[in-house]
């Protein structure tokens, strides 16, 4: 009996935001990210019989998405020229020898490390959001991540402002506890 079951009826609701968060940091365009996610779901539908159930649905969909992102980069790179790398040295004799420190102090290492931490933090947040009841997760995302105002959310979900704040309170309390257990420690 496979450990995980597959159910495409839940894919969009359950995984879109997670896949979007994964993709947007890699392609920097909402439209392209949405297209890639759509292609991922369609590819998933076509290859459902290949799902063995050893990994979770989300992990399986992410593996498809990763290939889609790589394909996307292959397509766009074929239209770009080669990048030129210029090394500039200061030929001023007063700073001669400083070039070594300039090369060793690589600012991009810090950026890559920050990116990795943020990516793992995003995963932790989405794992915790996944544990919330659907309505709490939806309201929290709309209010906190998307920054929708109270009136918009209330109209969209047909709830009162009082309801909204009760939901937000429950969501925040649960998330804070989850993050305490899964990230801060």
């Amino acid at each position, binding site marked *: 009996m496979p450990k995980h079951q597959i159910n*495409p*009826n839940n*894919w*969009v*609701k359950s995984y*879109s*935001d997670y896949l*979007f*968060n994964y993709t*947007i*940091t890699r392609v920097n365009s*909402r439209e392209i990210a*949405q297209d890639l*996610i*759509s292609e991922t*779901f*369609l590819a998933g*539908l076509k290859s459902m019989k290949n799902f063995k159930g050893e990994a979770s649905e989300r992990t399986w969909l992410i593996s498809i998405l990763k290939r889609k992102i790589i394909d996307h980069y292959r397509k766009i790179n074929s239209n770009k020229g080669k990048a030129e790398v210029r090394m500039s040295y200061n030929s001023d004799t007063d700073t001669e020898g400083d070039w070594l420190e300039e090369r060793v102090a690589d600012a991009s290492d810090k950026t890559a490390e920050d990116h990795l931490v*943020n990516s793992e*933090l*995003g995963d932790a*947040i*989405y794992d915790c959001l996944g544990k919330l009841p659907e309505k709490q997760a939806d309201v929290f*995302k*709309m*209010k*906190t*991540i*998307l920054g929708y105002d*109270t009136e918009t959310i209330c109209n*969209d979900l047909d709830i009162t402002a009082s309801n909204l*704040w009760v939901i*937000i*309170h429950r969501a*925040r309390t649960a*998330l*804070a506890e989850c*993050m*305490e257990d899964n*990230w*801060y420690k």
Partner: protein
Amino acid sequence: MKKSFLFISCDEAKHICDKVQYDEASSWEQFKLRLRLMYCHITKKYSNKNKKLSETIEKSKVQCLKTEELKKLQSQFDKELAKQQQDQ
């Protein structure tokens, strides 16, 4: 002056604390919260955890789909799913 006018309950304090995270607490609400924070360790603890959560979300730069984007994705997927189920 009625006691409840200035001195709010723990639950009300937490509610105001939530609104503060979204800049939606009025000056008067913020004043009542600050008063409570002076003597209630439970409110203080909740306030600290709440701020930490907001900072974490901010730092993560986590994103998600807008409502209309999600609806569009769902609609496209439903059509494909129906097509696939028809073909079977």
